[in-house]
Protein backbone atom coordinates (compact mmCIF):
# COMPACT_ATOMS: atom_id res chain seq x y z
CA UNK A 1 0.00 0.00 0.00
CA UNK A 2 1.12 3.55 -0.61
CA UNK A 3 1.41 6.03 2.24
CA UNK A 4 -1.68 7.77 0.90
CA UNK A 5 -3.69 4.54 0.93
CA UNK A 6 -2.59 3.73 4.47
CA UNK A 7 -3.56 7.21 5.61
CA UNK A 8 -7.01 6.82 4.05
CA UNK A 9 -7.39 3.47 5.77
CA UNK A 10 -6.55 4.98 9.16
CA UNK A 11 -9.00 7.84 8.63
CA UNK A 12 -11.67 5.29 7.70
CA UNK A 13 -10.99 3.28 10.87
CA UNK A 14 -11.26 6.33 13.09
CA UNK A 15 -14.44 7.56 11.41
CA UNK A 16 -16.37 4.81 13.17
CA UNK A 17 -15.79 6.37 16.59
CA UNK A 18 -18.49 8.76 17.73
CA UNK A 19 -17.16 9.20 21.25
CA UNK A 20 -13.74 10.62 22.03
CA UNK A 21 -13.42 7.95 24.72
CA UNK A 22 -13.62 5.20 22.06
CA UNK A 23 -11.01 6.93 19.97
CA UNK A 24 -8.59 7.11 22.88
CA UNK A 25 -9.39 3.54 23.91
CA UNK A 26 -8.36 2.52 20.39
CA UNK A 27 -5.15 4.56 20.62
CA UNK A 28 -4.35 2.81 23.89
CA UNK A 29 -4.97 -0.53 22.18
CA UNK A 30 -2.65 0.46 19.31
CA UNK A 31 -0.04 1.53 21.83
CA UNK A 32 -0.26 -1.76 23.66
CA UNK A 33 -0.04 -3.71 20.40
CA UNK A 34 2.97 -1.86 19.06
CA UNK A 35 5.90 -4.14 18.37
CA UNK A 36 8.20 -4.02 21.42
CA UNK A 37 11.13 -1.67 21.11
CA UNK A 38 14.47 -3.42 20.98
CA UNK A 39 16.27 -2.26 24.13
CA UNK A 40 19.66 -2.28 22.41
CA UNK A 41 18.42 0.85 20.59
CA UNK A 42 17.13 2.56 23.73
CA UNK A 43 19.99 5.02 23.59
CA UNK A 44 20.16 8.71 24.34
CA UNK A 45 20.75 9.45 20.67
CA UNK A 46 17.42 7.78 19.85
CA UNK A 47 15.50 9.63 22.56
CA UNK A 48 13.24 12.51 21.62
CA UNK A 49 12.60 14.10 24.96
CA UNK A 50 9.43 16.07 25.34
CA UNK A 51 8.78 17.82 28.62
CA UNK A 52 5.72 15.65 29.23
CA UNK A 53 6.61 12.30 27.68
CA UNK A 54 9.47 10.54 25.98
CA UNK A 55 9.67 9.03 22.52
CA UNK A 56 12.33 6.64 21.25
CA UNK A 57 12.85 6.18 17.54
CA UNK A 58 15.19 3.90 15.61
CA UNK A 59 15.33 3.51 11.84
CA UNK A 60 17.14 1.27 9.39
CA UNK A 61 17.28 0.66 5.66
CA UNK A 62 16.58 -2.67 4.03
CA UNK A 63 16.32 -3.29 0.30
CA UNK A 64 15.69 0.35 -0.53
CA UNK A 65 13.04 0.80 2.11
CA UNK A 66 13.07 2.59 5.46
CA UNK A 67 11.87 0.77 8.57
CA UNK A 68 11.09 2.36 11.90
CA UNK A 69 10.88 1.13 15.45
CA UNK A 70 9.39 3.42 18.09
CA UNK A 71 8.26 3.63 21.69
CA UNK A 72 6.95 6.04 24.28
CA UNK A 73 6.50 5.98 28.05
CA UNK A 74 3.00 7.46 27.63
CA UNK A 75 0.56 5.04 26.05
CA UNK A 76 -1.51 7.60 24.12
CA UNK A 77 1.67 8.95 22.59
CA UNK A 78 2.73 5.37 21.89
CA UNK A 79 -0.56 4.79 20.07
CA UNK A 80 0.13 7.78 17.84
CA UNK A 81 3.71 6.53 17.33
CA UNK A 82 2.19 3.22 16.18
CA UNK A 83 0.07 5.06 13.61
CA UNK A 84 3.08 6.95 12.26
CA UNK A 85 5.07 3.77 11.94
CA UNK A 86 2.17 2.09 10.18
CA UNK A 87 2.02 4.98 7.70
CA UNK A 88 5.72 5.28 6.97
CA UNK A 89 7.57 2.08 7.81
CA UNK A 90 8.48 -0.04 4.80
CA UNK A 91 8.25 2.84 2.35
CA UNK A 92 10.99 4.29 0.16
CA UNK A 93 12.80 7.41 1.37
CA UNK A 94 11.36 9.32 -1.59
CA UNK A 95 7.79 8.37 -0.70
CA UNK A 96 8.35 9.34 2.94
CA UNK A 97 9.71 12.72 1.93
CA UNK A 98 7.00 13.36 -0.67
CA UNK A 99 3.97 12.62 1.50
CA UNK A 100 2.43 14.88 4.11
CA UNK A 101 1.04 13.15 7.18
CA UNK A 102 -2.47 14.54 6.87
CA UNK A 103 -4.27 11.75 8.70
CA UNK A 104 -3.43 13.05 12.19
CA UNK A 105 -5.43 16.19 11.51
CA UNK A 106 -8.27 14.23 9.89
CA UNK A 107 -8.72 11.88 12.83
CA UNK A 108 -8.83 14.81 15.24
CA UNK A 109 -5.51 14.31 16.98
CA UNK A 110 -3.81 17.44 15.70
CA UNK A 111 -3.66 18.91 19.20
CA UNK A 112 -1.09 16.26 20.09
CA UNK A 113 1.22 17.63 17.45
CA UNK A 114 1.23 21.15 18.79
CA UNK A 115 4.68 22.22 19.98
CA UNK A 116 3.18 23.33 23.30
CA UNK A 117 2.21 19.76 24.14
CA UNK A 118 5.90 18.89 24.24
CA UNK A 119 5.23 15.18 24.16
CA UNK A 120 8.01 14.32 21.70
CA UNK A 121 5.71 13.69 18.72
CA UNK A 122 6.62 16.79 16.75
CA UNK A 123 10.28 15.92 17.13
CA UNK A 124 9.48 12.36 16.08
CA UNK A 125 7.87 13.32 12.77
CA UNK A 126 10.81 15.57 12.02
CA UNK A 127 13.22 12.79 12.92
CA UNK A 128 11.40 10.24 10.73
CA UNK A 129 11.81 12.55 7.76
CA UNK A 130 15.45 13.22 8.63
CA UNK A 131 16.16 9.48 8.65
CA UNK A 132 14.54 9.21 5.21
CA UNK A 133 16.60 12.12 3.97
CA UNK A 134 19.81 10.59 5.33
CA UNK A 135 19.08 7.20 3.75
CA UNK A 136 18.22 8.84 0.46
CA UNK A 137 21.54 10.70 0.49
CA UNK A 138 23.38 7.43 1.18
CA UNK A 139 21.75 5.71 -1.79
CA UNK A 140 23.17 8.02 -4.42
Amino acid at each position, binding site marked *: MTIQEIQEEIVEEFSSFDE*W*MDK*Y*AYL*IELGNDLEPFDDTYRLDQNLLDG*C*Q*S*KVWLHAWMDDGKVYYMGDS*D*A*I*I*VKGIVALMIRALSGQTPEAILDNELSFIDKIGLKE*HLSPTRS*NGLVAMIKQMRLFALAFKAKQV
Partner: protein
Amino acid sequence: MSLDIQHIRGQFPILHTEVYGKPLVYFDNAATTHKPARVVNKVNEIYHTLNSNIHRGVHYLSNQATLAYEEARKKVQLFVNAPNSHEIIFTSGATAAINLMATSFGDTYIKEGDEVIISTMEHHSNIVPWQLMCKRKKAVLKVIPLFENGELDMQAFENLLSEKTKLVSVAYVSNSLGTVNAIPEIIEKAHSNNTPVMVDAAQAVQHLNVDVQELDVDFLVFSGHKIYGPTGTGVLYGKEKYLNEMEPWQGGGEMIKSVSFEETTYNELPFKFEAGTPNIAGVVGLGEAIDFVSELGLDNIAAYEHELLQYATARLNEIEGMRIIGTANNKSSVISFLVKEIHPFDLGTMLDKMGIAIRTGHHCAQPVMDFYKIPGTMRASLAVYNTKEEIDKLVDGINKVAVLFG
Protein backbone atom coordinates in the same frame (compact mmCIF):
# COMPACT_ATOMS: atom_id res chain seq x y z
CA MET B 1 -17.06 32.80 59.11
CA SER B 2 -17.91 30.31 56.42
CA LEU B 3 -17.55 31.49 52.84
CA ASP B 4 -20.31 31.57 50.26
CA ILE B 5 -18.48 29.63 47.56
CA GLN B 6 -21.20 29.97 44.93
CA HIS B 7 -21.12 33.71 45.40
CA ILE B 8 -17.33 33.65 45.04
CA ARG B 9 -17.59 31.53 41.88
CA GLY B 10 -20.00 34.08 40.46
CA GLN B 11 -17.18 36.61 40.48
CA PHE B 12 -15.02 34.51 38.13
CA PRO B 13 -16.47 34.58 34.60
CA ILE B 14 -13.99 32.00 33.28
CA LEU B 15 -15.29 29.34 35.69
CA HIS B 16 -18.51 29.30 33.70
CA THR B 17 -16.89 28.47 30.37
CA GLU B 18 -17.11 25.07 28.76
CA VAL B 19 -14.25 23.05 27.31
CA TYR B 20 -15.04 20.34 24.75
CA GLY B 21 -18.69 20.99 25.59
CA LYS B 22 -18.20 20.20 29.27
CA PRO B 23 -18.17 22.58 32.21
CA LEU B 24 -14.65 23.53 33.16
CA VAL B 25 -13.23 21.99 36.33
CA TYR B 26 -10.07 23.90 37.09
CA PHE B 27 -7.50 22.30 39.37
CA ASP B 28 -4.36 24.01 38.08
CA ASN B 29 -4.37 26.84 40.57
CA ALA B 30 -0.78 26.37 41.67
CA ALA B 31 0.22 27.25 38.09
CA THR B 32 -2.04 30.29 38.06
CA THR B 33 -5.34 31.22 39.63
CA HIS B 34 -8.18 32.79 37.72
CA LYS B 35 -8.99 36.46 38.18
CA PRO B 36 -12.20 37.82 39.66
CA ALA B 37 -14.04 40.35 37.48
CA ARG B 38 -13.12 43.16 39.85
CA VAL B 39 -9.40 42.63 39.17
CA VAL B 40 -9.88 42.55 35.40
CA ASN B 41 -12.13 45.60 35.61
CA LYS B 42 -9.56 47.43 37.69
CA VAL B 43 -6.84 46.80 35.10
CA ASN B 44 -9.23 48.00 32.40
CA GLU B 45 -10.12 51.06 34.40
CA ILE B 46 -6.47 52.03 34.75
CA TYR B 47 -5.92 51.88 31.00
CA HIS B 48 -9.20 53.64 30.27
CA THR B 49 -9.01 56.40 32.83
CA LEU B 50 -5.56 56.75 34.40
CA ASN B 51 -3.02 55.59 31.82
CA SER B 52 0.15 57.60 32.28
CA ASN B 53 3.70 57.02 33.36
CA ILE B 54 4.30 57.23 37.07
CA HIS B 55 6.65 59.14 39.36
CA ARG B 56 7.84 61.60 36.76
CA GLY B 57 5.09 63.72 35.36
CA VAL B 58 3.82 67.00 36.69
CA HIS B 59 0.55 66.46 34.93
CA TYR B 60 -2.73 65.31 36.41
CA LEU B 61 -2.91 61.78 34.97
CA SER B 62 0.65 60.97 35.93
CA ASN B 63 -0.07 62.02 39.50
CA GLN B 64 -3.25 59.97 39.62
CA ALA B 65 -1.48 56.91 38.21
CA THR B 66 1.34 57.35 40.73
CA LEU B 67 -1.16 57.54 43.58
CA ALA B 68 -2.89 54.36 42.43
CA TYR B 69 0.43 52.53 42.06
CA GLU B 70 1.68 53.62 45.47
CA GLU B 71 -1.66 52.76 47.04
CA ALA B 72 -1.15 49.20 45.76
CA ARG B 73 2.25 49.17 47.44
CA LYS B 74 0.59 50.21 50.69
CA LYS B 75 -1.94 47.38 50.28
CA VAL B 76 0.86 44.84 49.84
CA GLN B 77 2.65 46.27 52.87
CA LEU B 78 -0.43 45.83 55.05
CA PHE B 79 -1.15 42.44 53.52
CA VAL B 80 2.19 40.95 54.62
CA ASN B 81 2.44 43.34 57.59
CA ALA B 82 5.73 44.88 56.48
CA PRO B 83 6.98 47.71 58.72
CA ASN B 84 7.47 50.09 55.78
CA SER B 85 5.96 50.44 52.32
CA HIS B 86 9.42 51.14 50.84
CA GLU B 87 10.37 47.60 51.80
CA ILE B 88 7.94 46.38 49.13
CA ILE B 89 9.57 46.07 45.70
CA PHE B 90 7.39 45.34 42.68
CA THR B 91 8.76 42.89 40.15
CA SER B 92 7.33 40.97 37.20
CA GLY B 93 6.80 37.86 39.34
CA ALA B 94 8.32 35.66 42.01
CA THR B 95 10.92 34.43 39.52
CA ALA B 96 12.12 37.98 38.84
CA ALA B 97 12.12 38.70 42.57
CA ILE B 98 14.39 35.72 43.25
CA ASN B 99 16.67 36.66 40.36
CA LEU B 100 16.87 40.16 41.83
CA MET B 101 17.81 38.61 45.16
CA ALA B 102 20.38 36.24 43.71
CA THR B 103 22.06 39.07 41.83
CA SER B 104 21.80 41.93 44.33
CA PHE B 105 22.21 39.96 47.52
CA GLY B 106 24.89 37.85 45.85
CA ASP B 107 26.85 40.88 44.59
CA THR B 108 26.70 42.56 47.97
CA TYR B 109 27.21 39.81 50.50
CA ILE B 110 28.55 36.66 48.88
CA LYS B 111 32.16 35.88 48.15
CA GLU B 112 34.17 32.87 47.09
CA GLY B 113 33.62 29.82 49.30
CA ASP B 114 30.44 31.17 50.91
CA GLU B 115 27.35 29.00 51.04
CA VAL B 116 23.65 29.41 50.29
CA ILE B 117 21.18 26.82 51.57
CA ILE B 118 18.08 25.84 49.60
CA SER B 119 15.98 22.68 49.84
CA THR B 120 15.30 19.63 47.68
CA MET B 121 11.68 20.66 47.17
CA GLU B 122 12.38 24.06 45.61
CA HIS B 123 10.81 25.16 42.35
CA HIS B 124 13.44 25.61 39.63
CA SER B 125 12.97 29.37 40.17
CA ASN B 126 14.51 29.02 43.61
CA ILE B 127 17.34 26.80 42.38
CA VAL B 128 18.67 28.12 39.09
CA PRO B 129 19.17 31.80 40.07
CA TRP B 130 21.29 30.61 43.02
CA GLN B 131 23.24 28.20 40.82
CA LEU B 132 24.02 31.06 38.45
CA MET B 133 25.06 33.28 41.35
CA CYS B 134 27.21 30.53 42.89
CA LYS B 135 28.93 30.03 39.56
CA ARG B 136 29.67 33.76 39.27
CA LYS B 137 30.88 34.04 42.85
CA LYS B 138 32.49 30.61 43.21
CA ALA B 139 30.10 30.06 46.10
CA VAL B 140 28.55 26.75 47.09
CA LEU B 141 24.90 25.71 47.03
CA LYS B 142 23.82 23.41 49.86
CA VAL B 143 20.57 21.47 49.78
CA ILE B 144 18.34 20.42 52.69
CA PRO B 145 17.26 16.81 52.11
CA LEU B 146 13.70 15.48 52.19
CA PHE B 147 12.03 12.71 54.13
CA GLU B 148 9.88 10.24 52.21
CA ASN B 149 6.67 11.99 53.36
CA GLY B 150 7.82 15.25 51.79
CA GLU B 151 8.95 17.04 54.94
CA LEU B 152 12.35 18.67 55.26
CA ASP B 153 15.00 17.01 57.41
CA MET B 154 15.40 19.75 60.00
CA GLN B 155 18.33 18.06 61.73
CA ALA B 156 20.18 17.93 58.43
CA PHE B 157 19.34 21.60 57.94
CA GLU B 158 20.85 22.48 61.28
CA ASN B 159 23.98 20.54 60.36
CA LEU B 160 24.33 22.49 57.11
CA LEU B 161 24.40 25.84 58.90
CA SER B 162 27.90 27.20 59.46
CA GLU B 163 29.81 30.47 59.48
CA LYS B 164 30.00 30.10 55.70
CA THR B 165 26.21 30.19 55.30
CA LYS B 166 25.25 33.60 53.94
CA LEU B 167 21.60 32.97 53.11
CA VAL B 168 18.86 30.36 53.49
CA SER B 169 16.26 30.42 50.71
CA VAL B 170 13.33 28.03 51.01
CA ALA B 171 9.73 27.64 49.87
CA TYR B 172 6.94 28.25 52.35
CA VAL B 173 4.68 25.76 50.55
CA SER B 174 6.01 23.22 48.04
CA ASN B 175 4.41 23.57 44.59
CA SER B 176 4.88 19.89 43.85
CA LEU B 177 4.14 18.26 47.23
CA GLY B 178 1.98 20.75 49.11
CA THR B 179 4.23 20.55 52.18
CA VAL B 180 3.98 23.59 54.43
CA ASN B 181 7.51 24.00 55.73
CA ALA B 182 8.31 24.86 59.32
CA ILE B 183 9.30 28.38 58.36
CA PRO B 184 9.34 29.83 61.92
CA GLU B 185 11.74 27.08 62.99
CA ILE B 186 13.92 27.52 59.90
CA ILE B 187 14.14 31.26 60.54
CA GLU B 188 14.90 30.78 64.20
CA LYS B 189 17.70 28.33 63.48
CA ALA B 190 19.16 30.46 60.69
CA HIS B 191 19.03 33.62 62.79
CA SER B 192 20.80 31.96 65.68
CA ASN B 193 23.53 31.33 63.10
CA ASN B 194 23.33 35.04 62.07
CA THR B 195 22.07 34.02 58.64
CA PRO B 196 19.22 35.86 56.93
CA VAL B 197 16.35 33.91 55.35
CA MET B 198 14.46 34.38 52.10
CA VAL B 199 11.08 32.68 51.86
CA ASP B 200 9.52 31.82 48.50
CA ALA B 201 5.87 32.38 49.35
CA ALA B 202 4.55 31.96 45.79
CA GLN B 203 2.38 29.03 46.93
CA ALA B 204 1.64 30.44 50.38
CA VAL B 205 0.24 33.97 50.42
CA GLN B 206 -3.01 32.95 48.70
CA HIS B 207 -3.61 30.11 51.16
CA LEU B 208 -2.44 31.20 54.59
CA ASN B 209 -1.77 34.27 56.67
CA VAL B 210 1.77 35.53 56.22
CA ASP B 211 3.10 38.16 58.62
CA VAL B 212 6.69 39.10 57.88
CA GLN B 213 7.19 40.78 61.27
CA GLU B 214 5.81 37.89 63.24
CA LEU B 215 8.02 35.51 61.24
CA ASP B 216 10.92 37.97 61.42
CA VAL B 217 11.70 36.85 57.88
CA ASP B 218 14.37 38.90 56.10
CA PHE B 219 13.10 38.52 52.53
CA LEU B 220 9.88 37.17 51.10
CA VAL B 221 8.75 36.86 47.48
CA PHE B 222 5.46 36.03 45.80
CA SER B 223 3.72 36.27 42.44
CA GLY B 224 0.58 38.30 41.75
CA HIS B 225 -0.93 35.87 39.27
CA LYS B 226 -1.14 33.05 41.79
CA ILE B 227 -3.15 35.19 44.19
CA TYR B 228 -5.98 36.10 41.81
CA GLY B 229 -4.02 39.06 40.41
CA PRO B 230 -2.72 39.89 36.93
CA THR B 231 0.19 38.07 35.31
CA GLY B 232 3.43 39.99 35.17
CA THR B 233 3.27 41.17 38.78
CA GLY B 234 5.31 40.06 41.74
CA VAL B 235 6.66 41.25 45.04
CA LEU B 236 9.91 41.21 46.93
CA TYR B 237 9.71 42.19 50.56
CA GLY B 238 13.06 42.85 52.18
CA LYS B 239 14.20 44.31 55.45
CA GLU B 240 15.26 47.90 54.97
CA LYS B 241 18.74 47.35 56.42
CA TYR B 242 19.54 44.81 53.70
CA LEU B 243 17.81 46.56 50.81
CA ASN B 244 19.67 49.78 51.58
CA GLU B 245 23.01 48.02 51.43
CA MET B 246 22.26 45.85 48.42
CA GLU B 247 23.53 46.76 44.98
CA PRO B 248 20.79 47.52 42.44
CA TRP B 249 19.77 44.76 40.05
CA GLN B 250 18.79 46.47 36.82
CA GLY B 251 19.78 49.94 35.75
CA GLY B 252 17.56 52.40 33.97
CA GLY B 253 15.10 55.16 34.54
CA GLU B 254 13.38 55.64 37.89
CA MET B 255 16.08 53.86 39.88
CA ILE B 256 18.59 56.73 39.78
CA LYS B 257 19.03 60.00 41.60
CA SER B 258 21.59 61.48 39.25
CA VAL B 259 23.51 60.14 36.30
CA SER B 260 26.71 61.39 34.77
CA PHE B 261 29.24 59.40 32.83
CA GLU B 262 31.56 59.55 35.82
CA GLU B 263 29.15 58.49 38.52
CA THR B 264 25.56 57.50 39.09
CA THR B 265 23.84 57.78 42.42
CA TYR B 266 20.90 55.55 43.04
CA ASN B 267 17.42 56.51 44.08
CA GLU B 268 16.11 55.59 47.50
CA LEU B 269 14.01 52.54 48.32
CA PRO B 270 11.92 51.13 46.79
CA PHE B 271 12.73 52.88 43.50
CA LYS B 272 16.36 51.75 43.51
CA PHE B 273 15.09 48.30 42.59
CA GLU B 274 12.38 49.33 40.13
CA ALA B 275 14.22 50.37 36.98
CA GLY B 276 12.12 51.27 33.99
CA THR B 277 8.39 51.71 33.64
CA PRO B 278 6.72 49.05 35.77
CA ASN B 279 3.54 47.10 35.12
CA ILE B 280 1.40 49.94 36.43
CA ALA B 281 -2.05 48.58 35.61
CA GLY B 282 -0.99 45.09 36.71
CA VAL B 283 0.25 46.31 40.07
CA VAL B 284 -2.96 48.24 40.69
CA GLY B 285 -4.83 45.06 39.70
CA LEU B 286 -2.72 43.15 42.23
CA GLY B 287 -3.84 45.64 44.88
CA GLU B 288 -7.43 44.83 43.93
CA ALA B 289 -6.71 41.09 44.15
CA ILE B 290 -5.30 41.60 47.63
CA ASP B 291 -8.48 43.43 48.60
CA PHE B 292 -10.47 40.47 47.25
CA VAL B 293 -8.45 38.01 49.35
CA SER B 294 -8.43 40.23 52.44
CA GLU B 295 -12.18 40.74 52.33
CA LEU B 296 -12.72 36.97 52.26
CA GLY B 297 -10.17 36.65 55.05
CA LEU B 298 -7.17 34.37 54.77
CA ASP B 299 -8.19 32.43 57.87
CA ASN B 300 -11.55 31.68 56.22
CA ILE B 301 -9.83 30.75 52.97
CA ALA B 302 -7.38 28.50 54.80
CA ALA B 303 -10.18 26.77 56.72
CA TYR B 304 -12.25 26.13 53.59
CA GLU B 305 -9.28 24.97 51.51
CA HIS B 306 -8.19 22.68 54.33
CA GLU B 307 -11.64 21.09 54.29
CA LEU B 308 -11.36 20.68 50.49
CA LEU B 309 -7.88 19.20 50.77
CA GLN B 310 -9.02 16.69 53.40
CA TYR B 311 -12.00 15.74 51.27
CA ALA B 312 -9.92 15.43 48.09
CA THR B 313 -7.28 13.34 49.85
CA ALA B 314 -9.90 10.97 51.25
CA ARG B 315 -11.76 10.65 47.95
CA LEU B 316 -8.60 10.15 45.89
CA ASN B 317 -7.42 7.50 48.34
CA GLU B 318 -10.56 5.49 47.50
CA ILE B 319 -9.18 4.97 43.98
CA GLU B 320 -7.49 1.65 43.44
CA GLY B 321 -3.76 2.00 42.89
CA MET B 322 -3.71 5.61 44.13
CA ARG B 323 -0.35 6.84 45.36
CA ILE B 324 -0.24 10.33 46.82
CA ILE B 325 3.22 11.87 46.56
CA GLY B 326 3.80 14.11 49.56
CA THR B 327 2.04 13.16 52.76
CA ALA B 328 3.44 15.75 55.16
CA ASN B 329 1.48 16.45 58.32
CA ASN B 330 1.07 20.07 57.40
CA LYS B 331 -0.06 20.44 53.78
CA SER B 332 -1.77 23.13 51.78
CA SER B 333 -3.80 23.10 48.58
CA VAL B 334 -1.65 20.77 46.46
CA ILE B 335 -2.12 17.04 45.87
CA SER B 336 0.40 15.26 43.69
CA PHE B 337 -0.46 11.70 42.78
CA LEU B 338 0.07 8.70 40.56
CA VAL B 339 -2.47 6.03 39.71
CA LYS B 340 -1.20 2.51 39.15
CA GLU B 341 1.24 2.56 36.25
CA ILE B 342 -0.68 5.17 34.27
CA HIS B 343 1.62 7.80 32.80
CA PRO B 344 0.70 11.32 33.99
CA PHE B 345 0.51 12.53 30.40
CA ASP B 346 -2.10 9.88 29.54
CA LEU B 347 -4.28 10.59 32.54
CA GLY B 348 -3.93 14.36 32.10
CA THR B 349 -4.88 14.09 28.43
CA MET B 350 -7.98 12.02 29.17
CA LEU B 351 -9.09 14.25 32.04
CA ASP B 352 -8.66 17.27 29.81
CA LYS B 353 -11.15 15.73 27.39
CA MET B 354 -13.61 15.61 30.30
CA GLY B 355 -13.11 19.31 30.96
CA ILE B 356 -10.87 18.74 33.98
CA ALA B 357 -7.68 20.80 34.10
CA ILE B 358 -4.87 19.32 36.15
CA ARG B 359 -1.14 19.69 35.74
CA THR B 360 1.06 16.79 34.70
CA GLY B 361 4.81 16.47 34.64
CA HIS B 362 7.62 17.49 36.95
CA HIS B 363 6.07 20.85 37.97
CA CYS B 364 9.42 22.61 37.53
CA ALA B 365 10.73 20.65 40.49
CA GLN B 366 12.82 17.91 38.89
CA PRO B 367 14.93 17.25 42.01
CA VAL B 368 11.71 16.27 43.82
CA MET B 369 10.83 13.82 41.05
CA ASP B 370 14.39 12.44 41.17
CA PHE B 371 14.03 11.99 44.92
CA TYR B 372 10.91 9.87 44.48
CA LYS B 373 12.41 8.24 41.34
CA ILE B 374 9.35 9.12 39.23
CA PRO B 375 9.19 11.01 35.92
CA GLY B 376 6.41 13.25 37.14
CA THR B 377 3.03 13.32 38.78
CA MET B 378 -0.53 14.44 38.25
CA ARG B 379 -1.17 17.49 40.37
CA ALA B 380 -4.51 18.86 41.48
CA SER B 381 -4.11 22.25 43.14
CA LEU B 382 -6.97 23.99 44.86
CA ALA B 383 -8.26 27.52 45.12
CA VAL B 384 -11.02 29.09 47.15
CA TYR B 385 -13.52 28.74 44.30
CA ASN B 386 -13.19 24.96 44.01
CA THR B 387 -15.93 22.71 45.34
CA LYS B 388 -16.41 19.18 46.62
CA GLU B 389 -18.58 18.49 43.56
CA GLU B 390 -15.58 19.28 41.37
CA ILE B 391 -13.43 16.90 43.41
CA ASP B 392 -16.09 14.22 42.84
CA LYS B 393 -15.85 14.88 39.10
CA LEU B 394 -12.08 14.47 39.25
CA VAL B 395 -12.40 11.18 41.10
CA ASP B 396 -15.07 9.91 38.67
CA GLY B 397 -12.88 10.96 35.74
CA ILE B 398 -9.84 9.14 37.08
CA ASN B 399 -11.92 6.02 37.66
CA LYS B 400 -13.22 6.13 34.08
CA VAL B 401 -9.71 6.42 32.69
CA ALA B 402 -8.33 3.73 35.00
CA VAL B 403 -10.82 1.25 33.53
CA LEU B 404 -9.36 1.80 30.06
CA PHE B 405 -5.89 1.08 31.34
CA GLY B 406 -7.03 -2.12 33.02
